[in-house]
């Protein structure tokens, strides 16, 4: 019998009507009578509103000057933000020492950058320990009294740098804590399990505002009378515990996504419990949980503005102080709150872009 040769057909380009700008517009904006009407309404609303908004924000805004009297035009008074910018970013940290705050922020950026660029083996040896030590290094450095720098009381720390640093310091410490709690929660040991479940459920079931009040009012009662624990330190502990509870639940969902076969394979080559957990389970849990880890981080970062209720001078608190300053009375609230919102949005949006890129990176390197 004659054998027929099998020749695969070549690929052909997709028809033009299904790709390109015109096709996109037609499919997404003008696909039906209803969609056409909605599109027209939205476009005309934007045309009506946007020019006024941009005019207020940019074109008629007051950019130059240094006092309230310079705000003569109708638009936004950005001079307000300019005049208070040092407070907004650094709180009352002394002028000459601000390099210490900048250096802490720089260290944080460098460590994050390192954890992206280093090859895996070095990353585990350098970036991970660096991350864990970073909060304590920054603490020593910003405080200064133990390393021969000019001591700066934590009452003076503040502004946006405080929001960033305390959020970062919390999540870094909450990471191992949360992982241990998640392990404890699914442990066979009744003691470890009940302690973990209690901690997780308590901190997850309590509003962060209530926890901050408890931290500032109640926690000192548990310490001996002659020991006074710094307010910022207490807040940090509260944030770490709160965050750990959320991280524990994030990790738990990651644990559940790991197929049973992975545990069995690890068992069958004789790995012990900690080897199995750290070498097989942990890396895969991190990969699966990455979107939720970053979502939790964004949540904590935004929650740092709640610190204003116990009078920690974080960014929003500084703005509110500035608004009640006698030189700036008379309605700069919109500018102030917009600015806070904008800065937070920029940070959270870049984190979510970062998250997307991490997910892509993890996805291609070891797909299964």
């Amino acid at each position, binding site marked *: 019998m004659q054998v027929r040769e099998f020749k695969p057909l070549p690929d052909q380009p997709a028809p033009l009507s299904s790709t390109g700008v015109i096709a996109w517009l037609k499919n997404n904006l003008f696909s039906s009578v209803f969609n056409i009407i909605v599109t027209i309404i939205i476009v005309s609303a934007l045309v009506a509103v946007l020019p006024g908004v941009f005019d207020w924000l940019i074109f008629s805004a007051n950019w130059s000057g240094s006092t309230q009297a310079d705000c003569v035009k109708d638009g936004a008074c950005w001079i307000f933000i300019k005049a208070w910018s040092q407070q907004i970013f650094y709180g009352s940290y002394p002028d000459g020492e601000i390099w210490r705050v900048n250096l802490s922020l720089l260290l944080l950026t460098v460590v994050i950058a390192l954890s992206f660029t280093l090859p895996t083996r070095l990353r585990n040896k350098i970036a991970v320990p660096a991350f864990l030590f970073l909060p304590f290094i920054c603490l020593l450095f910003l405080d200064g009294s133990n390393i021969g720098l000019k001591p700066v009381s934590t009452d003076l720390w503040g502004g946006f740098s405080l929001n960033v640093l305390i959020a970062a310091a919390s999540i870094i410490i909450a990471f191992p804590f949360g992982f241990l709690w998640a392990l404890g929660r699914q442990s066979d040991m009744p003691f470890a399990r009940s302690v973990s479940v209690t901690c997780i459920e308590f901190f997850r079931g309590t509003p962060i505002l209530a926890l901050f009040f408890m931290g500032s009012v109640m926690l000192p009662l548990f310490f001996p009378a002659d020991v006074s624990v710094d307010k910022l330190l207490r807040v940090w502990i509260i944030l770490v515990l709160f965050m750990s509870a959320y991280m524990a639940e994030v990790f738990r969902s990651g644990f559940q996504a790991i197929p049973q076969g992975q545990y*069995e394979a690890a068992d*069958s*080559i*004789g790995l012990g419990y900690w080897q199995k957990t750290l070498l097989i389970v942990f890396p*895969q849990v991190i990969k699966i949980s990455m979107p939720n880890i970053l979502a939790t981080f964004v949540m904590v970062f935004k929650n740092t503005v709640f610190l204003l209720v116990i009078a920690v001078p974080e960014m929003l608190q500084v703005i509110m102080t500035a608004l009640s300053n006698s030189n700036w009375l008379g309605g700069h609230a919109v500018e102030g709150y917009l600015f806070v919102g904008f800065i937070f949005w920029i940070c959270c949006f870049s984190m979510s872009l970062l998250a997307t890129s991490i997910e892509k990176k993890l996805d291609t390197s070891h797909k*299964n």
Partner: protein
Amino acid sequence: MSVDKQNIESTSDKEIIAIKDMNKWYGNFHVLKDINLTVKKGERIVVCGPSGSGKSTMIRCINRLEEFQRGSLTVNGVEMIDDVKNIEAIRREVGMVFQHFNLFPHLSILDNLTLGPIWVQKKPKEEAEAIAMKYLERVKIPDQAKKFPGQLSGGQQQRVAIARSLCMSPEIMLFDEPTSALDPEMIKEVLDVMVELAHEGMTMVCVTHEMGFAKKVADRVIFMDGGEIVEQNTPHEFFDNPETDRLQLFLSQILQH
């Protein structure tokens, strides 16, 4: 070995696995009923039977992936007792290959193979990598060492899984339906590796429905149904003169299609 070897006198040095009156329940469901099985060193056993017959459960009991409630199990002279050290000692003697390969997706092929030698046997990295490459060559895929499991075909992944077990130089290899999740075109490459392994004298217990493989290499074929061993015999007798009607029915079902 640091583990107390109980009953070592009663175990002849040729018997490498001894299962006595093993019973297992899932809740109230009696999955294994009075299993008695001894495997001699170098023996190749094939276990078959309908799904739900307890064959996978039985071999998973041998390296303690499953617990059993009654009876006793001795592997390579070590009696299985409820103790972590003891379980880890037995697992070091027993390699296992799974239906769904269970490679570690976040590690390269080479790292999958060296994990056990480095962390369990505490071998230096260079030595572990040399061993890994030796076994990768034996399963004929040394060129895939730097890739990740997700980049390999099913047949290649299963061969890596076999190599991963062999890296621990086990006394016994357990196979739990190693070809059931594979495309027809890939079954052969895995079976070839297993046949080669059998010819080298490895003790093997293999749950499979590849009857060709059973005829070719098995010393004994075991038929299980309803949680018990119904029949065991040499492949020749097993296929040509089944003693029970249940096995006759089973063989007629699987050989018909």
